[in-house]
């Protein structure tokens, strides 16, 4: 079983690394957007009640979530491609266990997500990001980033397996992107002036994922923010992976 998982993870990582289009955008695009927004919204750090001295410290959490969204699309697209190309049907005729297929595939996606998170962190430190959580905060923020990536990758895998169509997975990407924009991504929730927007951001789970990562950078160890972020990430991850496992079972029965 472990051998099967490792083999599927290796295939997943190699598939990603062999296509620069799957590696470069998830790393570069969030950093470019962060750089632009940091310059464009730096003046917002002068608002009364803004929690950080520089907008960079506030904004650096966003690439972690954007990177996870790309992980979601990569996971879903790769599995959809396996369905479309008939790889899944051929696999069904082998003694390969279903769990190994999914765990191995998601493991590969997690490895890429971990590398992205490390890059975001290194870039953050290089441009002068504060990090009051200290040395222990580094593995903790990486763990949270991985959990968030697993949560979105699980959802992406579900869509990919359920639909068996790469186009359908791409079609879901804007939906996740909307969730990101309608969150506390650009301003802290108490500083969002429009009541309806603050209401949506408050009930949007993505706000709490961002705020959990942001807490390491702005406040240090914030028990409430971390409990909410880890809790929500775990719930989405469990739900997403369970849904993906169910879709895989259905997909293999159909073949």
């Amino acid at each position, binding site marked *: 079983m472990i051998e099967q998982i490792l083999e599927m993870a290796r295939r997943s990582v190699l598939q990603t690394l062999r296509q620069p289009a799957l590696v470069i955008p998830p790393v570069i695009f969030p950093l*470019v*957007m962060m*750089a*632009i*927004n*940091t*310059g*464009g*919204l*730096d*003046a*917002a750090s*002068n*608002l009364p009640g803004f929690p950080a001295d520089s*907008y960079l410290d506030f904004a650096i959490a966003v690439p972690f979530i954007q990177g996870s969204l790309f992980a979601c699309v990569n996971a879903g697209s790769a599995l959809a491609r396996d369905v479309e190309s008939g790889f899944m049907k051929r696999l069904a005729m082998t003694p390969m266990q279903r769990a190994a297929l999914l765990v191995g595939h998601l493991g590969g996606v997690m490895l890429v997500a971990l590398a992205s998170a490390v890059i975001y962190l290194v870039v953050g430190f290089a441009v002068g990001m504060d990090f009051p959580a200290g040395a222990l905060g580094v593995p903790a923020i990486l763990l949270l980033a991985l959990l968030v990536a697993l949560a979105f990758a699980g959802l992406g895998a579900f869509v990919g397996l359920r639909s068996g169509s790469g186009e359908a997975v791409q079609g879901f990407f*804007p939906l996740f992107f*909307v969730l990101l*924009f*309608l969150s506390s*991504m*650009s*301003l802290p929730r108490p*500083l*969002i*002036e*429009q009541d*309806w*927007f603050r209401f949506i*951001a408050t009930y949007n789970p993505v706000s709490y994922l961002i705020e959990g990562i942001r807490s390491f950078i702005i406040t240090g160890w914030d028990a409430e923010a971390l409990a909410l972020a880890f809790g929500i990430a775990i719930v989405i991850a469990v739900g997403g992976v369970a849904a993906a496992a169910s879709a895989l079972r259905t997909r293999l029965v159909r073949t």
Partner: protein
Amino acid sequence: MRRFAQVAGAVAWRSIHNVATNPAFLLPSIIFPMFFFVAFAGGLSNVGNVPGFDFPSGYTAFQFVFVLLQASAFGGVFTGFGIAADFERGFTRRLFLAAPSRTGIIAGYALSAWARATVVGVLLFVVGLATGMQVGGDGVDIVGLILLAYLVSLAATLFAAGVAMRLRTLQAGPAMQMPVFLVLFLAPVYVPLDLLAGWVHGVATVNPFTPLIESGRDFISGSAAPAAGAFAIAVALVAAFAWWAVRGLRRAEAAG
């Protein structure tokens, strides 16, 4: 000239028909600008209270102008996607054989981009006014803003057409989208130019899109600032990208 107009009209009608009858083409170009308007004007409205931010018509109008020009530009980029798809399907090669005036093909695509920009612009105005956007400019100012949006749409369409005709594949999508995206976002998007910080301020100062967006904001607030410079830049961009698109057309013809 009559042949040019006939080809342009036929290509425009076909492109508009394709977009209007296919929700997968139509909806993104309508929904994304609305979404950006909601996300920026709603989520960031407190940025209008930053010291030094003194736009008279308020943050909603400030963001409206950016989203209107962005939607106009991206309508042009989406039209470029359509041109690339037509190459992939082999439609453009058949069109080259049939069209008595091939530059009319580019004009036709540009007309369809204008039609798309018109639909999105009208919807944006409706949503903006419905959400209480303050318009300080008079009728002439609004006409100036609309004219600016059409010029931005035309410049972006010609740029994307030039790329599509050189590469002739949908995989050229990022080569059309990313430069436009970067030019748009490396301008004073969220705050006026004076409040931008760091390297973004430096880039925005020399970005040709900055005078366009600033003039658009002057129009909607009714400021008496001169707009001749912005129109001169817009016309120069249109002229430069028209040359780019026609050269691309010649490359596509030579490629067969």
